């Protein structure tokens, strides 16, 4: 991210895609997230994916819940309508929007607090309904916006900024999505652009409910006391002049992980995440094998990334409801109102 305002003028030599847009046309407002937040890398990946897919930006509707992650839709696709809804309940709003107009592309952006805690029910039901959308969870294991409480994806035994130990078992949204019937399920890492962009592209192009869990380190709050000495120190000496927490900007974490590789990634708080990228001959066509594979590697202390499962023939909620091809929001009285004559017949049947 950058704090510098972007120049309004477009450079004449910027490359355009098939629909005539430059990469810049897919950008949004300047991000207000902490410098180095993984969420900004995900925004960049979304911009890249939409540009590469030749999507007209205004044909995308981007919806989110509440949280740092849920703020991000303002930071990409500025020409699209966006909707920052309520905490955890983006899936229902997206479902309604999708029912109203099946012709747009729906991008749902959420956080782990948003989707795995308050919004777990809505997450589950949107998956099982097969709402056509790309649903991205920017997963940092904490509540960013409310400053560092545990989310339901936080590892058991991990410590919060305030030193509280998390005793609950973590939820795995990918495992749940697989179980709930999502027809496209993947996991990425915010810093692994090579892998993330194609994952997002696949999700956007998918014909049913696509889910991607993106591990996205939080600069500000996944610290443990040992590694935050200087942070605390600065904070203590800072409070007199400012009530705002001090957040040290950091370099965003990036990795370059090829197919089949395993890599230890050191996070801002010093903890280590062992990422395993799926092998090129992994078969993503088997939902149950995907579940087992993930589980096995979880036990080995690895977090599997890549496209775990896809049903290329998936259909969506509109197919199930047999709704008209013409979007419901485009129908007028001629198609919707049975008219006075039919009403007269109905009146007669009620006498």
């Amino acid at each position, binding site marked *: 991210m950058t704090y510098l305002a972007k120049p309004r003028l477009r450079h004449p030599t910027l490359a355009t895609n098939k629909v005539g847009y430059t990469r810049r046309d897919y950008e949004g407002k300047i991000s207000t997230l902490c410098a180095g937040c993984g969420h900004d890398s995900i925004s960049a990946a979304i911009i890249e994916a939409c540009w590469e897919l030749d999507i*007209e*930006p*205004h*044909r995308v*509707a981007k*919806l989110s819940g509440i949280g740092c992650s849920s703020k991000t*839709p*303002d930071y990409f696709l*500025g*020409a*699209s*309508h*966006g*909707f*920052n*809804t*309520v905490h955890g*309940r983006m*899936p*229902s*709003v*997206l*479902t*309604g*929007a*999708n*029912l*109203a*107009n099946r*012709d*747009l592309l729906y991008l749902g952006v959420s956080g782990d607090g948003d989707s795995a805690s308050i919004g777990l*029910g*809505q997450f*589950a*039901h949107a998956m099982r*309904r097969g709402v056509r959308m790309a649903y991205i969870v920017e997963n940092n294991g904490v509540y960013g916006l409310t400053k560092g409480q545990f989310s339901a994806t936080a590892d058991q035994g991990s410590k919060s900024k305030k030193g509280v130990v998390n005793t609950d078992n973590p939820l795995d949204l990918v495992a749940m999505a697989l179980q709930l019937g999502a027809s496209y399920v993947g996991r990425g890492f915010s810093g692994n652009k090579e892998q993330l962009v194609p994952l997002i592209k696949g999700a956007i192009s998918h014909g049913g409910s696509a889910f991607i869990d993106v591990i996205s380190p939080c600069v500000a709050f996944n610290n443990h006391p040992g590694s935050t000495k200087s942070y605390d120190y600065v904070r203590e000496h800072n409070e007199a002049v400012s009530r705002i927490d001090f957040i040290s900007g950091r370099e965003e974490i990036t990795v370059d992980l090829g197919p089949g590789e395993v890599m230890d990634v050191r996070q801002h708080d010093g903890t280590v995440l062992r990422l395993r990228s799926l092998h090129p001959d992994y078969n993503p066509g088997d939902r149950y094998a995907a579940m087992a594979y993930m589980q096995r590697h979880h036990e080995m202390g690895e977090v599997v990334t890549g496209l775990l499962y896809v049903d290329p023939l998936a259909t969506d909620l*509109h197919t199930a*409801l*047999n*709704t*008209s*091809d013409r979007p*419901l*929001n485009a*129908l*007028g*009285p001629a*198609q*919707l*109102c*049975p*008219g*006075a004559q*039919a*009403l*007269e017949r*109905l*009146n007669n049947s*009620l*006498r």
Partner: protein
Amino acid sequence: MSAIPQIEAVNDFVIKFANVNGSGSASANELFAKAILRMGVPVSPRNIFPSNIQGLPTWYEVRVTEQGHLGRRGGTDMMVAMNPQTWDADLAELEPGGYLFYDSTRPLPPSKFRSDIRVIGMPLTEICNAVYQDPRQRQLFKNIVYVGALAILLGIEPEVVEKLFGEQYKGKEKLLASNVQALHLGCDFARENLREPVGLQVRRADRVGNRIFVDGNSAAALGCVYGGATVAAWYPITPSSSVAEAFQKYCTKFRVDPSTGQHRFAIVQAEDELASIGMVVGAGWNGARAFTATSGPGISLMTEFIGLAYFAEIPVTLINVQRGGPSTGMPTRTQQADILCCAYASHGDTKHVLLFPQDPHECFEHAAAALDLADRLQTPVFLMTDLDIGMNQRLCEPFAWDDSAAYDRGKVMSAEELEAGRDFGRYKDVDGDGIPWRTLPGTHPTKGSYFTRGTTRDAYARYSERGPDYIYNMERLLKKFATAATLVPQPVLRPAAEKTDLGVIYFGSTSPSMHEALETLEEQGIHLDALRLRAFPFPDSVVQFLAQHRQVFVVEQNRDAQMRSLLINELDADPARLIRVLHFDGTPITARFIVQAISTHVQQTQALRAAGTKESA
């Protein structure tokens, strides 16, 4: 026997059926009511049922009313006592001189009866056991057999019932034949054995006119079909579930493309009320007309989203079929007790548009109007019905529709308008009515997109934490609410026959009882100008009405006088001049109750005035 005084009444009595829930009596009882209606005599039936599927007591009360008084009367002239569990209470409810009809298969000791009523015994179980082998049939046809007997006793033409069977079982000849047989079993037994004449009689009349007989929930659903709702999301809750179910039925009938079989509607039974309102918000944001139907507890769950829809200005229609609260209160009884919680639903400063239909006819009309208003005002609109209108069939004016009427889609800016360079500020009050313009997602490649959120923004929808931006927005929302007062259905004034300084305000399902009460009060020399509210915000005519009357009774079905509070709060009305008339035991308010409350108050104040004491409210 003949020494007992009998109630004598033609086309004007109350008969009540006491049954066991799940015994199949509902359709037989409804058949009884409809047969009377077909003889040209108005009826007003009410289901009084428990929150249970099987086993608990259930009642069906039919008011036969040549005068057309459709409110609940109170008291019972004939009890069809089919439930041993409630025998004592049922018996106690009978008016002196009334009639008890019961299954006399098993003898009961004399102590089980009252000396001031007439008892008509019929061995229903014995008769059915003799004719039917199948236990299900024995039970089900018992209901039809008593309908047959009652027809003879009360002068209902059996041919009319047969005709109704014919309509009900069209194409199902076997069912038709067996039902007709059961009916005649009852008729024949009554003719041969129940000879003593009954003083309650139904006689052909011509008092129904072209009115229709329908429940409010079906009517509201039909209003949503006619009003162009395409997305419905709901979660089951009594007494609102039949709204969504009827919407499904009517859409299947009217909204399937004949050539492709495709549906011009989407109905989702959501996982809960949070999701149902969320879907409606999403659909409304994206330009489809959408609604949800629920009841009190559902409204509670929806309030966060209602606040978002209010603040972010998204059209949403909610049908609230009110029941007894708080909490699970009396889930299968009626109340008007969600007024304040809907008027101010959600945190922060909010105000919402409420519509109060008085009967199924207005449920239809107001449901369609609610969809227009929601689009026009870009805000949540509540249709405030209740169990009494929602789940009971009511005689009302036929539905009407003007085919030339277009839907009011409100201020939606098109691609052409954007292209022509119209200034677009999502939250800008360009027309001075507080209502901004909106664009729908996907409209234009470069113009008119904006970010919707529940946080403050400036007139161009840009995130803002500035006080002046917040105040501009909040004050504009108030202006919009003032505009709403000019668009909602206006109150209906019913002036008294004589000039008076007394007024009465009422609304919704109270109407038929109120109208009856006004007649009775007039006979007693008490004259009241009556104003029926049909919506909140209150139009100016309500202010005038309050100003023109020394005292105004506010009749409502809740404990805390919620409508009175709303009048005081919103109009700065003088509390001392607003007299509470409150009924909240879960049964529909009766004319008797209203008359009693108002006449007592009037007499008291007259006595006080005569004694020279200063009057007090």
